[in-house]
């Protein structure tokens, strides 16, 4: 086994991981591991913008941004963390700009801003232009800019290394085990601190905007080591996925004036969110689309509606929304300047994840006890700034703000601590897992289990949920977990063995699906993106609290509850 020693190890090289890297002083020895090439990370698929109250076009205020985020989260977001994020936002944008990010500009040379769902001025009065953007490829620019700066700093990258286990000892983390994809060799990275920035798990669901690589790896390897996962029942379904593929069409399309219409040509969002209409938060718009479909007002009575951009004119589409209009042309052969785009909700973002404090330190219980040396940031983490529903543009903000804070804190921690000795059983769990998979001979193939899992999660645990459906889903899921014990691969080589990698990823997806499903069964209320047909109302009395889900090997997971940080903004009914 190959061994490496570093001060800080960063797992995942998307926006969060690379923001962490940028914050680590040069004197520390850093390695960045990615299962892809860093510039393939899914941050690059984010389109519409990154919010900050710069006020470049009209009055704005970080506290308005914080208020919108708290309200958008259906009051489950932690208010201290949200205020921190919104206050840090302007400097985070200017920092990206200095790193070379090519933002779209205004006539006076300042950064351009546009409206986005749920972002308002004056405590919810009307939409505000807060989303800074680079045409409609903001995430691509963030990813590439941060990667370019990491190259400039001569960062040590280990590309195409799949991390399969974290190494923990006495409530502290001292490294990770990774498999080099091209050779199958196992590498131990021994370090003072580890920052997880591995992204989400949209691929647990059949229809998703997420990349093939988004399989919940970072969350699962923590969960397997007794670290809880927080608020996993909250999964965001983006209202405008290209029908039927699920490819994302940015909310910025509605920010620029696009509207949703049903089969009668009605702008139905006027009924569901009279004040901000099509710019309502995503959970509300996704549910509204399904309500229209259920009422038989889907286009041709089918399961999609139309996103109409035809009135915006070709010039605006080419300038402000070139990529998404390109997707419509490429994948559906539709010209958005002339005809509406068929859309339906698509699995998009995990609000839940590895619980952390505002410095990215991983928390392991309701009292806030820390797993020393272990950090998480970006989509794999749950700070929680998104609560029960994330506002558009806040994911990019989350990953630059909290990626940086995790990098800073991990640096301080690593400067003041010594490498602890590796435990004697380091890497044992992943080794035995991989050997088991390799030695299985008669059993289902990886894709067979994966496809079934994606189908049941989509059918029973997506936009609308109920007890009966989820119970059925739970029993099917545990059958799949049993089948997985016998999963069989035919590629036994060590050379670019994607089948082995897919088996590992599937084990991760089964774990995080379990946490999501059981969290959703437990939470008997409707809040944000978690919508129970059998409990249609929000219940602050019993459920204004975070869930922490702990894995119990061979049994259903157990739960503990953590308080929500309130205090600044009053908990109210959520009306738009």
């Amino acid at each position, binding site marked *: 086994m190959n061994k490496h020693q570093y001060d800080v190890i960063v797992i995942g090289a998307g926006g969060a991981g690379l923001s962490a890297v940028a914050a680590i002083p040069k004197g520390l020895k850093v390695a960045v591991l990615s299962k892809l090439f860093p510039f393939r990370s899914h941050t690059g698929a984010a389109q519409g913008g990154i919010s900050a109250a710069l006020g470049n076009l009209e009055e704005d205020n970080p506290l308005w941004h914080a208020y919108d985020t708290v309200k958008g989260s259906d009051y489950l977001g932690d208010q201290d963390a949200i205020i921190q994020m919104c206050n840090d936002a302007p400097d985070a944008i200017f920092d990206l*700009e200095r790193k070379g990010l090519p933002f779209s500009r205004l006539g006076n040379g300042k950064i351009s801003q546009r409206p986005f769902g749920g972002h308002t001025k004056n405590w919810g009065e009307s939409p505000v232009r807060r989303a800074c953007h680079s045409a409609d490829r903001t995430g691509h620019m963030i990813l590439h800019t941060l990667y370019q700066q990491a*190259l400039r700093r001569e960062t040590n990258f280990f590309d195409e290394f799949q991390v399969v286990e974290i190494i923990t000892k006495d409530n502290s983390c001292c490294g990770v085990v990774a498999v080099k994809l091209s050779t199958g060799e196992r590498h131990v990275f021994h370090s003072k601190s580890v920052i997880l920035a591995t992204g989400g798990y949209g691929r647990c669901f059949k229809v998703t905007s997420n990349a093939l690589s988004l399989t919940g790896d970072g969350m699962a390897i923590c969960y397997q080591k007794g670290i809880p996962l927080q608020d996993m029942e909250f999964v965001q379904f983006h209202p405008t996925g290209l029908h039927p593929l699920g490819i994302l069409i940015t909310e910025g399309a509605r920010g620029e004036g696009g509207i949703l219409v049903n089969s009668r040509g009605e702008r139905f969002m006027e009924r569901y969110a009279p004040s901000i209409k099509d710019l309502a938060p995503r959970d509300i718009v996704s549910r509204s689309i399904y309500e229209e479909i259920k009422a038989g007002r889907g286009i041709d009575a089918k399961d999609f509606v139309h996103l109409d951009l035809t009135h915006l004119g070709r010039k605006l589409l080419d300038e402000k929304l070139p990529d998404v209009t390109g997707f419509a042309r490429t994948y559906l052969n539709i010209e958005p300047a002339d005809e509406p785009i068929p859309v339906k909700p698509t699995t998009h973002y995990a609000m839940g994840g590895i619980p952390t404090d505002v410095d990215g330190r991983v928390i392991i219980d309701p009292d806030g006890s820390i797993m020393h040396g272990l950090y998480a940031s970006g989509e794999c983490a749950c700070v929680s700034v998104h609560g029960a529903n994330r506002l558009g543009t806040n994911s990019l903000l989350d990953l630059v703000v909290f990626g940086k804070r995790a990098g800073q804190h991990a640096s301080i921690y690593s400067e003041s601590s010594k490498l602890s000795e590796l435990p004697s059983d380091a890497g044992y769990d992943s080794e035995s897992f991989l050997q088991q998979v390799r030695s299985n001979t008669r059993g289902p193939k990886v894709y067979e289990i994966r496809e079934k899992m994606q189908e049941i999660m989509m059918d029973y645990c997506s936009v609308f949920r109920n007890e009966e459906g989820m119970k059925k889903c739970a029993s099917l899921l545990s059958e799949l977990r049993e089948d997985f014990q016998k999963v069989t691969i035919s590629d036994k080589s060590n050379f670019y063995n994607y089948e082995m990698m897919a088996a590992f990823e599937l084990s991760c997806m089964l774990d995080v699906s379990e946490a999501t499903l059981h969290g959703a069964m437990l939470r008997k209320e409707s809040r944000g993106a978690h919508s129970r047909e059998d409990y249609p109302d929000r219940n602050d009395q019993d459920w204004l609290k975070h869930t922490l889900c702990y894995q119990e090997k061979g049994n259903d997971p157990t739960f503990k509850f953590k308080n929500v940080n309130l205090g600044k903004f009053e908990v109210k009914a959520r009306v738009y």
Partner: protein
Amino acid sequence: MSILVNLRSRQGFIEMLRVFRIQRFNPEREPNQWVDEYTLEVNEDDKILDILLKIRDEVDTTLGFRASCAHGVCGSDGMMIDGLNRLACQTFVGDVPGRKPINIAPLKGVPVEKDLIVDMDPLLDKVKSVNPWVVAKEHKAGERELLMSQEDFEKIEDMTKCIWCSCCTTSCPSLWSDSDYLGPQALVMAARFILDTRNEDAEKIIEKVGGLDGVFRCHTIGNCTDACPRDIDVTGAIAAVKKVLLQGIDNEDKFSNIVWEKGDEKE
């Protein structure tokens, strides 16, 4: 080897049979490349990537290729399809007209590692060698953005779309005949960072692209522009670098040293 795959029938559609001829390579199995033929029941609007995924899932799990976002923004699945470099997730069965076999091969001009996977290192080394980044003064708390006009943004916008898929560089005959040539991808990056008005280190890039293996190896063949899945005017970007080398950069309209301080009057 020829394999007929029976796919599950999709909603009773009458579909067509197409032959996919995939170039294979696995030095653990045999020293030379070979071709496998798969006959699949497909639709015109099936993505080539989905076909490759299906083959890997259900027929031959050892088939090597890279993929991630599956909608043309990550750049993982650049390969040669029917003789042209393209992204498999952005290419459809119907893009190869008629009923002829669809040939799928790895990108040319770089070493193949396994099947459709090529060694990315030589390509990345070329890009890294041109210093593809902006050097600006560090941001300090309270300082606002460096100003840049929308016009100056638009000058570089096309090039900033680059996703580093390397379809351009590996389609370039000049590169095929001289592997030391920097190639289109590195030159697009050079153009993007030379023309960025905020970059204080543009001169360094100019020095790096003027040499023997640099921009004047380009013979304006134009394969790169045809290959670009992001519709970047690659040849135009290279021409811009040539122009800068011959005429110098026009510094007059640079905003790069102007800092808009907090508290300045808002418009």
